[in-house]
């Protein structure tokens, strides 16, 4: 499993695989199964292989986190910037206007 940025396996595939994750009960049964692989149906056969990889689904969750962090970080950064840099003048204005109102004195000095 090649891992550099979490992009090597398509995100959709990771998501699909995670949805396939067996329950504890199912996982136990799959592990206990010692018969021939071809006796199982295709889905079970695939899961049996996955379950035999140690922490396969936890590893997939790591990849998912890698991907989500990259994506969310840039959009959150942008949202922060929008909330702060630009609207801030407007917010500051409103504050200054109110200050002006409260103290009924001169225009606030900006230094």
């Amino acid at each position, binding site marked *: *499993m*090649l*891992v*550099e*940025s*979490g992009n090597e396996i398509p995100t959709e595939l990771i998501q699909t695989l995670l949805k396939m994750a067996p329950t504890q009960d199912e996982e136990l049964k799959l592990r206990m199964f010692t018969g021939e692989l071809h006796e199982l149906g295709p889905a079970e056969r695939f899961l049996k292989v996955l379950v035999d990889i*140690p*922490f396969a689904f*936890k*590893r997939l*969750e*790591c990849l998912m*986190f*890698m991907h*989500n*962090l990259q994506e*969310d*970080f840039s959009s*959150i*950064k942008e*949202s*922060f910037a*929008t*909330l*702060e*840099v*630009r*609207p*801030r*003048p*407007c*917010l*500051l*204005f*409103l*504050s*200054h*206007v*109110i*200050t*002006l*109102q*409260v103290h*009924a004195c*001169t*225009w606030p*000095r*900006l230094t």
Partner: protein
Amino acid sequence: MACNDLRESRLFLKLLEAVLKTGNRMNDGTYRGGAQAFRLDTLLKLSDVKGTDGKTTLLHFVVQEIIRSEGIRAARTKRASRSVTSVNTSDDSDEGSEDSEEYYRSMGLQVVSGLGEELADVKKAALIDGDALTSTVSKLGHSLMKTQDFLDKDMKNLEEDSEFQGSMERFMVSARQQVMWMVEEEKRIMALVKSTADYFHGNAGKDEGLRLFLIVRDFLIILDKVCREVKDTTMKFAKASSSSKKEPRTSSVSSPEARSQQSPTPSSDLHRKLFPAIAERRMDYSSSDSSDDEDF
């Protein structure tokens, strides 16, 4: 930097100042005269208060006032900069038209109609879902801890020394930094938004959060509409009055402020009729004008 931003949206401040002054005039005596009593929603109500003609709103009046003062200001700035750059040119020929009320008004209109653009980012901010932002940040923080836990326990015990493990360790270094930054920033920015919202909502204890931007956005939409209406009526007045008004001006080079006070515009006459109580105590911009000139 904050100072730069402030200057950029000086107009918005101006507008609010006018709004507040007007609000005070309307509620003289009853207005509790403090921030605690003022709610930002008041901005939106400005367009509900109608004049005696049942059409012109208080916001029209406020916009009209600002157009007047901004126009004078813009003309003054332009004249000042030109007298520095080109002293001996023949610009004097159009001096007469530049001093006219129509000229001030059109200059003012230009400035005011730029307001919507100036604050376009408020609209963008209004679209941000604050709750979703907060929950995404905490979800990422949770995932980070879970991943770290997995690497420290399960993967360590496995002792496989795989490429997966190496890559994850490297990734976690930057992930920790990014998540930590986001958690801190989220706290800081939400606090900033909240403290400002508290200001306007009188610390009602209600977490208004980003609703602030929604109100400002709605206000800007109304404002944009009013500006266009004022522009249309101003143009009509200008056309009508330019043909009939031929009185010679008596004062030679009096200041623009003094001149505009001497000859009130047709539209301000109209507003005097529409909002008699306010017009009697005309908004005095000259004080704030001069002081913020020095400030910037």
